[in-house]
């Protein structure tokens, strides 16, 4: 075959416009994610004035006993958080899937409370409960040292528990009841069923949960910032190095350390998900849960205890936000909702709303088109493989690192995109990148399920691809689109770690304002702001749940009225 016809064949297989769109999208993600990361990695090896110094920065870092101690601290709290959260998450999910307790819906939603508030607020709630003037401290005459190791571990457990719980919930929900029936027929005792059926079935999830909890605790900034005291961790070190001492290179060094568990977690997840695909047969029967008062009793107590703790945490925020001067004057007041101007006042909240709204809308549009280009366009194998990898890469990049690498990259005068620095654009961008992967995976999975012949039919009717996209793919993916928007919104409302480096005094956001108000000894106003975030996030979640129910209802109506 001659060159010309080979070229012709190659070109005919691709649509030029789709190819260009694909290239643009992959380039945008490369420029906004990969280049900043590379810039941060470079910084770690540069000294004063941008001279290459090799591993000198690392030597200095590990040579400093105070800083080296942070690593031990971080590993220590991450380790205990992982053990506790994984255990609690497993039993909570087990109770909700494998026992006959009532109020499962209530238990399920209450467990999600921590997702809707920033991690600083988990810490703030703990201070209100266990601090020197804490509600529980006073009520039971407790003496718990909440500032430091114990407090941080508690806050990180609250932060990671919903993640562990949700992952276990999914894993435990889908099982093949026939396995348990077969075991019963053979007279196998309950503990053996647990160790030989249940745990092997969810072993990949267990590994995943361990990694996720460890990474989240390892890289969290909010809780140690508030509760740390003399107990330093890596995330607070970065902040001190960069914001406190303007030592950018040292910040980059710590940034690379934060990447280590995140990358290990990322690789573990990739290996596991390739092994974990489609193990459940279509013939699987649902598990019939047997009667057991002892088991149900245990889970009533267990789930109620967890739920009560979480509600107590939110309750403490209410007390802090509405009491005139806790604990001395408990009169009801709204004065704490008058936020200090130094932190941007109520505007910080409006800014957050605007930012989260933009993140939800623009992020979802971008991710949807991106996932569509990866799944439904033919003939760009190489770029598409790279693009898919790029889509899941943010899983391995903690918010702190994104924030840091954004400063290094966009704050450089030489960068033509420098103008976005200090504006809302960079905040939205950092949020979209930080939370890119989950929506990307959700939407990709949804698009994969759509009949691949829709595009072929469209082609045969001369309908342009963009029209098939808008009229067929988008409406059919509506639930995934809503889920992704909600995910973007809620996370953008609560995230602090990427934001602390990027907000400007002129444009502050609520989650960062909470951290600052707490630092400045204004916990009541911090609690008030936290409640605003909590309220808006719960509302968005409810809006999402109702919309999905409505869509399902409409679809079911379309399907059940029989047409004969």
């Amino acid at each position, binding site marked *: *075959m001659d060159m010309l016809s080979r070229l*012709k*064949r190659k070109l*005919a*297989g691709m649509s030029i416009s789709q190819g260009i769109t694909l290239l643009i999208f992959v380039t945008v993600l490369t420029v906004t994610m990969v280049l900043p990361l590379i810039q941060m990695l470079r910084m770690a090896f540069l000294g004063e004035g941008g001279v290459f110094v090799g591993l000198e920065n690392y030597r200095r870092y590990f040579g400093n006993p105070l800083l080296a101690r942070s690593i031990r601290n971080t590993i220590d709290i991450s380790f205990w958080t992982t053990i506790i959260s994984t255990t609690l998450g497993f039993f909570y999910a087990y109770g909700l899937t494998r026992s006959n307790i009532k109020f499962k819906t209530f238990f399920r939603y209450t467990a999600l409370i921590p997702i809707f508030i920033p991690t600083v607020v988990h810490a703030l709630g703990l201070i209100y409960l266990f601090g020197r003037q804490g509600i529980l401290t006073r009520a039971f005459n407790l003496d718990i040292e909440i500032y430091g190791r114990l407090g941080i571990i508690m806050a990180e457990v609250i932060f990671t528990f919903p993640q562990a719980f949700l992952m276990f919930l999914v894993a435990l929900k889908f099982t093949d009841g026939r396995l348990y029936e077969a075991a019963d027929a053979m007279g196998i005792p309950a503990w053996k069923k647990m160790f030989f059926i249940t745990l092997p079935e969810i072993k990949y999830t267990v590994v995943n949960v361990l990694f996720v909890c460890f990474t989240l605790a390892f890289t969290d900034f909010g809780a140690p910032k508030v509760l740390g005291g003399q107990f330093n961790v890596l995330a607070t070190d970065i902040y001190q190095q960069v914001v406190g001492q303007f030592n950018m290179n040292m910040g980059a060094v710590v940034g690379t350390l934060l990447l280590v568990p995140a990358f290990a977690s990322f690789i573990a997840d990739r290996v596991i998900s390739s092994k974990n695909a489609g193990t459940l047969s279509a013939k699987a029967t649902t598990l019939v849960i047997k009667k057991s008062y002892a088991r149900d009793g245990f889970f009533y107590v267990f789930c109620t205890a967890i739920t009560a703790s979480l509600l107590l945490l939110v309750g403490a925020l209410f007390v802090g936000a509405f009491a005139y001067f806790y604990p001395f004057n408990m009169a009801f007041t709204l004065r704490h909702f008058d936020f200090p101007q130094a932190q941007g006042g109520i505007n910080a909240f409006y800014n957050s709303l605007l930012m989260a709204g933009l993140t939800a809308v623009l992020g979802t549009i971008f991710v949807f088109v991106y996932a569509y280009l990866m799944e439904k366009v033919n003939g760009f194998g190489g770029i598409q493989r790279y693009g898919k990898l790029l889509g899941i890469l943010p899983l391995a990049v903690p918010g702190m690192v994104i924030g840091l690498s954004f400063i290094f990259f966009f704050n450089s005068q030489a960068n033509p995109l420098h103008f976005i620095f200090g504006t809302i654009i960079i905040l939205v961008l950092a949020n979209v990148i930080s939370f890119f992967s989950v929506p990307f995976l959700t939407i990709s999975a949804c698009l994969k399920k759509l*009949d691949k*012949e*829709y595009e*072929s*039919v469209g*082609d*045969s*009717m*001369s*309908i*342009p691809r963009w*029209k098939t996209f808008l*009229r*067929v793919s988008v*409406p*059919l993916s509506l639930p995934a689109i809503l889920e992704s928007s909600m995910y973007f919104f809620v996370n953008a409302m609560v995230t602090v770690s990427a934001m602390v480096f990027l907000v400007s005094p002129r444009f502050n956001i609520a989650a960062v304002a909470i951290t600052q108000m707490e630092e400045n000894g204004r916990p009541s106003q911090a609690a008030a702001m936290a409640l605003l975030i909590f309220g808006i996030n719960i509302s968005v979640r409810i809006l999402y749940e109702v919309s999905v129910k409505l869509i399902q209802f409409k679809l079911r109506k*379309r*399907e059940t*009225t*029989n*047409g*004969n």
Partner: protein
Amino acid sequence: MFLQIKDITKKFGKQTALNNVSAEIEKGEFVCILGPSGCGKTTLLRTIAGLELPTSGQIFIDGKDSTYLHPAKRNFGIVFQSYALFPNMTIVGNIMFGLQQKKKSMTKQEMENKALDVLRMVDLYDHRNKYPRQLSGGMQQRTALARAIALSPAFLLLDEPLSALDAKVRHKLRTEIRSIQQSLKITAIMVTHDQEEALTMADKIIVMNNSVVEQIGAPREVYDKPVNPFVANFIGTMNFLQRSGQTRAIRPEQIEIVDHRDEHDVTVRIKHIEFKGVLTRIHAFLPNQTTMIYLDVPSEQIDDLQLNENGMLFLRLPQEHLIDYPQGAA
């Protein structure tokens, strides 16, 4: 000649899906591409549609080299096994979607009339405002057919359109598709693995196996004169006998039972009598005790023949129905 497929080869990586495939299709013909799963028949259809591009070879539509022509410019309608109806549009909406795009010269009223016309043709006028999932599989497939013909395409491609349906519906739709095709005088190419479907519907059958074309011919021709043992075996049942240096083949229904043994006749021992409805199939051993021979007898005659398992039987293999293949071919 309407469509010419010339020396098409299609490779997916190292795997060859089509190996030097050539065929010609006349205007108004109903052509079935028949073969076992994985033989390349769907790839051939998708290559004709332009949904896949050949590694080498050419496709001419109406005499024009259309090998690299975009699918949208080939002017065909397509029906898939999965129906591929847009679930968020009503039945009439599905048909209008294509019309609005392609027939820009039509007024809205004309488009609607056209859509309703085709719906009447497939007998779905009463269901026009329903959504696809409210209809049975057969009705959904008729909608897909209506959507495909609404644009008055030059030819129709059907990718196993009946495979997902129940036997009863399948038989009914066979007749319907064929009669619509004939009334519109439209060229149609259908992929199927069901030999009965191909025999009853097609003007011409392209038999494929292992990425190559084995035989092209009218249903009768392919059935009566299969060019090789694969075709013979794939379409219907065939007995192969090794005789005096060559392989001779005969269909079960061509074998006659005789009372007296002639010198050319064979004696067999009955192994098993299988009632199959109209016909009864007799499984019997040749004298060598290893080769099995099958013959079909109208069931109504079975009682008169007074057959029993392990009994002996004389068979005549009429010369005119014997097909010769090179020795060892089967």
